[in-house]
């Protein structure tokens, strides 16, 4: 209903300011019109779940990038010994992924977790966090959608989470 009332509204900001300053009593000075104007102003703001999504996204992305910026120097300056010596990486990146995994003895899926003590695999902490940000955001807004009884969007969010979990599971492995 609110949308229907607002559907034809294209209100100029400066115009609003002018009418506020006008000494002549205007329609918008009436309580119901003022309330509607306030409602429109409020609708320009992001919805609660959208704001929450933004806040979580920002924090998680910043943390992921920070992790990358910390772990990468640890790797390239040799503070932690890498699984593949730095001067040999260029031998592998001309191969396709399947050959690279076979020749460099790198596992697929989540096998990197067991190799976190190696400088190169330590970078996967930041990389996987960045890849997980979207799922974390969906988890953060799910309770809000559920509480608001927004059934369609709750289902959409649950389905999206299921897809992301499937993609992240490591079950979808392919080779050339």
């Amino acid at each position, binding site marked *: 209903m609110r949308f229907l009332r607002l559907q034809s509204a294209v209100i100029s900001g*400066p115009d609003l300011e002018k009418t506020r300053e006008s000494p002549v009593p205007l329609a918008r000075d009436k309580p119901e019109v003022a309330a509607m104007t306030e409602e429109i102003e409020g609708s320009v703001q992001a919805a609660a779940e959208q704001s929450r999504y933004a806040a979580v996204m920002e924090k998680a992305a910043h943390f992921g990038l920070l992790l990358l910026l910390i772990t990468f120097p640890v790797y390239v300056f040799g503070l932690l010994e890498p699984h593949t010596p730095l001067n040999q990486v260029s031998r592998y990146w001309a191969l396709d992924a399947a050959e690279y995994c076979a020749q460099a003895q790198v596992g697929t899926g989540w096998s990197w977790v067991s190799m976190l003590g190696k400088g190169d695999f330590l970078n996967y902490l930041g990389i996987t966090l960045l890849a997980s940000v979207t799922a974390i955001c969906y988890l953060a807004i799910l309770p809000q959608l559920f509480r608001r009884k927004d059934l369609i969007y709750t289902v959409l969010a649950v389905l999206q989470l299921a897809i992301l979990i499937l993609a992240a599971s490591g079950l*979808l*492995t392919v080779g050339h």
Partner: protein
Amino acid sequence: MRRPLKSAREPLRGLLLGLCLVVPAYAAGQAVPPTPGPTAWWITPLVLFVVTLGIGILAVMSGVGGGVLFVPIVSGFFPIHLDFVRGAGLFVALCGALAAGPGLLRANLASLRLALPIGLIASLCAIAGAMMGLALPTSVLQICLGATILGICLVMLLARKSEVPVVPRADWLSTALGIYGLYREPSSGKIVNWKIHRAPLGLCLFVVIGILAGMFGLGAGWANVPALNLVMGAPLKISVGTSKFLLSITDTSAAWVYLNNGCVIPLIVVPSVVGVMFGSLVGVRILKVAKPAFVRWAVIGVLAFAALRAISKGLGY
């Protein structure tokens, strides 16, 4: 007002010339299979960082996503297999979306209600695209990538934009999903009320967009914006903002597939992500001073050249 425009042109021309000269020169040097030496490992990541810095600047200046420039240029001119380039390309696009997303959502210039249903379809198709991309022979992929990039050049040349498209009536699907909103146009202060139409057709388009994004590791902003703006009738500001945010959903799914299949090498991904992000920051600063039209044309030229290079590589020349 003209002076800063002129003065900003010179470094930009230099940047473009640098990209056009350095990248092929580096590629020519790498034509011989690399022999690993004790000190040579850092050269490629360093060149990659410098090139991605330039890509980041050009991406902002031309309004093209970093991923779209990254994949054809790096796969065409670096001695890196397409699998790793696509893996890195997805992270480049993803990080750009993660950096821009919060601000766009807060300003209501990206709509979560519009992005959620589209993201669901696009991410599912991006997974399918990623799996197809990893299963296809590299030569076929190179040719398809070249053809897709040429298609992107055409879209960039021909696609029109509509600031606030006329949407006489919202369709049944967007009404059921409650996809509508208000935003304040920053330049005029006007509050614009928007809704969309042709949602079923738009969602079908995102099947193709998702597959292409996953298959080639491209951020799909080049296709998202016309689909949202011209087909579904979302205002241009909402289309651009939602498209950028949408990449964080679409590319995440495909990025996981590449990550789990060993296509992510930190020595390639980290310099690329950091390079493009720093480049974007520099690009935004330059954009405040000038937006020369030639940058967009030059980017189309670079993309077309990289596309032809991809096709020739695919054909074995």
